[in-house]
């Protein structure tokens, strides 16, 4: 399978800089990029035309800001300590999250469980679908061309780059979110955490462990 024209990663840049050829600028700079200007124009026109409200836009930003890996960590920690909850979580992700007061706005959360002989990883090769309603916005690398290209083809090489290695007796299963379902990995509970509280356990559950590029470690 050949591809004549490969640009590698999708040109995301360090914090504060704008993509392409613009020099480093502080966060929230005045719009200089063509599409940044377009984004301002779109927002203004939509508000003026009454399609959206300024408060509504602000509220949605806050709503998104409130989501993050800490929510997924709570869910995972509870599943680790409560086998009956875990069964409910695996059967119906949104319902189990709602039990903890986490509303997923119709997102079809599907939890895939790691086992001693099975490790799961998540990707969206076609765009960058991600369980946003639970984990918040995805990291740039998850949306990058290199991740999207390689993880279905050579998952273990990608895992190695993230510092994760698995025995060849462990099946690596890559989930490509091509349609309606959104996934998180339920990692294996680390050895040495017996008797830990849910709160302490949640501290071990990072974003990367729920995407499946890292394994939780008891510190």
């Amino acid at each position, binding site marked *: 399978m*050949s591809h004549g024209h490969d640009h590698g990663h999708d040109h995301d840049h360090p914090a504060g800089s704008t993509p392409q050829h613009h020099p480093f600028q502080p966060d*929230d700079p005045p719009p200089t990029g063509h599409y940044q200007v*377009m984004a301002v*124009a779109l927002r203004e026109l939509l508000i003026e035309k009454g399609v959206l409200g300024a408060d509504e836009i602000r509220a949605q*930003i806050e709503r998104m800001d409130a989501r993050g890996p800490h929510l997924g960590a709570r869910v995972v920690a509870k599943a680790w300590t409560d086998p009956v909850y875990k069964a409910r979580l695996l059967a119906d992700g949104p319902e189990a999250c709602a039990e903890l007061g986490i509303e997923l706005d119709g997102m079809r959360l599907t939890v895939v469980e790691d086992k001693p002989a099975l490790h799961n990883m998540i990707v969206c*090769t076609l765009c960058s679908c991600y369980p946003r309603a639970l984990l918040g916005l995805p990291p740039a690398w998850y949306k990058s061309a290199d*991740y999207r290209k390689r993880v279905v083809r050579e998952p273990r090489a990608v895992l190695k780059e993230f510092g994760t290695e698995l025995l060849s007796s462990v099946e690596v299963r890559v989930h490509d979110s091509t349609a309606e379902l959104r996934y998180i990995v339920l990692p294996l509970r680390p050895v040495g955490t017996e008797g830990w509280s849910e709160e302490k356990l949640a501290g071990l559950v990072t974003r990367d462990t729920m995407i499946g590029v890292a394994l939780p470690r008891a510190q």
Partner: protein
Amino acid sequence: MANLPDDDVPELARGIHDMGGLPGGAVDRHEHAVTLWEKRVDALLVLLTRKDVFSVDELRNAIERLGAEAYTSMSYYERWTASIAWNLMQRGVITADELGRRMAEIEAEGRQ
């Protein structure tokens, strides 16, 4: 792929976005904060699809039609911005004329 010889796959049929399995480089793991303008674009796409102004499928479709050069050189939120603009024009919510005029005004005044 899929047990077929390479020349059986019409590579011309591959959309630029349809990249699973292609060779790539090391994953750049550098983290960077999502800026305010990007969060605003994200909010627009969530609200506009929630209100059924257009569907997320139409949004994705427009991104896939951007063309190979644009797709690979634009950033993630630049692509969404272009798609939102396109779909709003497609649906007659805004015109190219009013968008262009407003963009020129914003650029001249340095508005955010």
